[in-house]
């Protein structure tokens, strides 16, 4: 790499420093908002797949199968280019013309719905890992199905799936980078932009890499603390993928 001119100081000069900060901020915002959609929605779908009602199970399975078998990038394009065309006329017009932050919102919705399918799978395996006897014991006491979920199944299931959920949460941060394909200026795209303007490829990408690693490390640390605080003695564990 003899012909490479190192240029670290450029990273702290404006406007490049500002780009990095705003890119990082966007990455975090997309991830957090997408998770805010994914977690409740995914939980609902995951639980639906464990109920006795066939219709709910089928609907849940359909959702997961569709969202998991289409690449995330293709989903992004579908949401940004195709969905506005398919919506009823006035909605389509609003989305295309009047909706604020179209790329950003599209990215959040796309990522949120995709991640919901992953959360659904974790929730489902967490609940299914609980022995059937627990559910029967709850019902035998006179609890309704809903109460059994609330007091017996969910408290245990969610504790056991903390590791794989953490993995999915980190996935949201990493997948936020796909938003750059529809024009959102998140961290990775800003790094690329700096590279294109300054040719300081190594420096720019290193900053992005370091920031992603930092986020990952922090999230894992927080999750370990949460896991330690909420541990149940002798509980079952569900593996993460």
């Amino acid at each position, binding site marked *: *790499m003899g012909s*490479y001119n190192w240029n670290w100081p450029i990273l702290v000069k404006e406007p490049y420093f500002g780009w990095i900060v705003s890119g990082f901020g966007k990455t975090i915002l997309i991830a957090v908002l997408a998770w805010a959609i994914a977690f409740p929605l995914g939980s609902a779908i995951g639980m639906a797949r464990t109920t006795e009602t066939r219709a709910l199970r089928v609907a849940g399975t359909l959702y997961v*199968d*569709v969202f*998991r*078998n*289409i*690449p*995330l*990038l*293709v*989903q992004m*394009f*579908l949401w940004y*280019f*195709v969905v506005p*065309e*398919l919506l009823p006329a006035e909605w389509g017009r609003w989305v295309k013309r009047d909706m604020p932050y179209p790329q950003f919102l599209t990215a959040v919705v796309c990522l949120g719905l995709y991640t919901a399918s992953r959360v659904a799978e974790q929730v489902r395996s967490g609940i299914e890992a609980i022995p059937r006897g627990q559910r029967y014991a709850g019902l035998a006491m006179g609890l309704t199905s809903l109460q059994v979920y609330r007091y017996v199944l969910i408290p245990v299931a969610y504790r056991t799936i903390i590791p794989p959920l953490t993995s999915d949460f*980190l996935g949201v*941060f*990493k*997948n*936020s*980078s*796909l938003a*750059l*394909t529809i024009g959102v200026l998140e961290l*990775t795209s800003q*790094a*690329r932009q700096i*590279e294109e303007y300054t040719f300081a*490829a*190594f420096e720019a*990408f290193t900053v*992005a*890499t370091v920031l*992603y*690693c930092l986020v*990952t*490390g922090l999230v894992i640390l927080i999750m370990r603390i949460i896991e330690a605080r909420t541990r149940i003695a002798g509980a079952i564990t569900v*593996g993460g*993928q």
Partner: protein
Amino acid sequence: MLGGFDFAILWANAPFLWNGMLLTMQLTALAVTGGLLFGVILAVLRLSRVHPLAWLVEGYVNFLRSMPLILVIFWFYTLVPKLIGRPVSGFYSVLIAFVMFEAAYYSEIVRAGISSVRRGQIAAAMALGLTNLQAMRYVILPQAVRNMVPVLLTQSIVMLQDTSLVYVVGLRDFLTSADIVASRDNRPTELYMFVALVFLVVCFSASRLVNRLRRRYAL
């Protein structure tokens, strides 16, 4: 609603789209092979008694798993020509990126597979007088492989979807080819829905097959 759509455009551009599909399949096949080979090496090193080596591999795996694949693609796309000293075709840079990235995931699967064999099995093998090597060969590896294969296959299906990310460096895979046609003729709906459908069918069938395999060969 369906009236305004022109699906003939798919037929008209079939050869171009097919070439894109070929590149996707090529990339996937090579990346899976390379990633698996490298992943197995990493897993073996990780399980070895040489602590600095195991530690190094663990660092590599954790590092690569903290980064988005797009960033890794950018890294290798800009770095590989610089390291080699002359321009390299995008395909090779991207292939190296995929191999390095997926190897981290494959190595975790392999490692988990070997660790999943019950400790009692090792004790029983040793009690019969089998040496370490014999125990590995006849008792542990056959079971580990059976446990690993479904997960490895599932990861490969994920890899197939991941290859669509070559879009960011303009490599003409299936999605990018479709995108080119979509922009040129302003028909995003037909093209992207077609791409989505193809992936849906392929990945869904593949995962069904893996499930069937898992049920047949589960231990």
